[in-house]
């Protein structure tokens, strides 16, 4: 059904333009979710129902939840409640809601089954799975390695409690730079072998400067 494809593509384009032109991160995220849902409808009309479901579940579900989580984490403080109240005013819902309503009507129209859904030949999930675990099995292994790396990296970055970076002169080069206390570069070569980086005095650079 060609008209369904064009409507969903128009919604996706408009929502994406609204995403990158918003000044507020939460408003942009609302439009980005609508954009991803519209992309899912586009994939559905293109004959890729499995990928459409993944788009909704992983992109619009998991990744956008991560974004919202981080945005909410970054706005902790006294002004956060007032800020969130302003964000939740009904006015800003209107645009994403209208676009999402268009998508819902379109999905209901497609779900009645009276119209042909696809604009192209359908590729069944079974064919995708056979290809994925046949010629592309090495890619699956690499993807699992990548996800493991992402997991370890996010855990490492998220749990280490380092002090705030300071701006000062590097004791080796004299350049102005930001560094963290206990930085291996700042500690210099005169550090005793085997000594912990944490044992280096915090303001050692000021003695040299």
């Amino acid at each position, binding site marked *: 059904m060609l008209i369904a494809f064009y409507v969903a593509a128009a919604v996706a384009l408009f929502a994406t333009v609204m995403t990158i032109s918003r000044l507020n991160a939460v408003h942009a995220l609302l439009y980005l979710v609508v954009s991803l849902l519209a992309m899912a409808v586009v994939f559905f009309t293109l004959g890729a129902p499995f990928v459409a479901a993944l788009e909704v579940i992983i992109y619009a579900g998991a*990744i956008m939840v991560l*974004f919202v989580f981080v945005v909410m984490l970054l706005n902790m403080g006294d002004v956060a409640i007032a800020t969130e109240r302003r964000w939740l005013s009904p006015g800003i819902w209107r645009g994403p809601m209208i676009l999402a309503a268009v998508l819902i009507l379109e999905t209901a129209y497609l779900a009645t089954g009276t119209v042909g859904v696809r604009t192209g030949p359908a590729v069944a999930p079974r064919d995708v799975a056979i290809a994925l675990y046949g010629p592309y099995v090495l890619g699956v292994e690499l993807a699992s390695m990548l*996800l493991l790396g992402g*997991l370890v990296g996010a855990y490492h*970055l998220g749990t280490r409690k380092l002090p705030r*970076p300071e701006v000062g002169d590097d004791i080796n080069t004299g350049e102005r730079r930001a560094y963290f206390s206990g930085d291996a570069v700042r500690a210099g070569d005169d550090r005793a072998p085997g000594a912990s980086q944490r044992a280096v005095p915090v303001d050692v650079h000021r003695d040299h400067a």
Partner: protein
Amino acid sequence: MRRNVLFQLMSIEIMLNAAGLAFIVAGARWGQPDGQVMFLFILTVAAAEVSVGLAVVLRLFHGFGSLDTDQASIMKG
């Protein structure tokens, strides 16, 4: 140019999605499953990238008190 690191990450998501759309359209055009397989890989890359990226955003905000990427331009090593 947007200097907010959250918007930069969101734009990366949009670009990865656009690349995935190109693969899906090509797969639909020739009726092959390879396009959808490539989209799955792009999805994996996007998920790994956004998890590490958002952890970096948290560290950046903790360290500099701002989401402006220019604030971190003096960081070396």
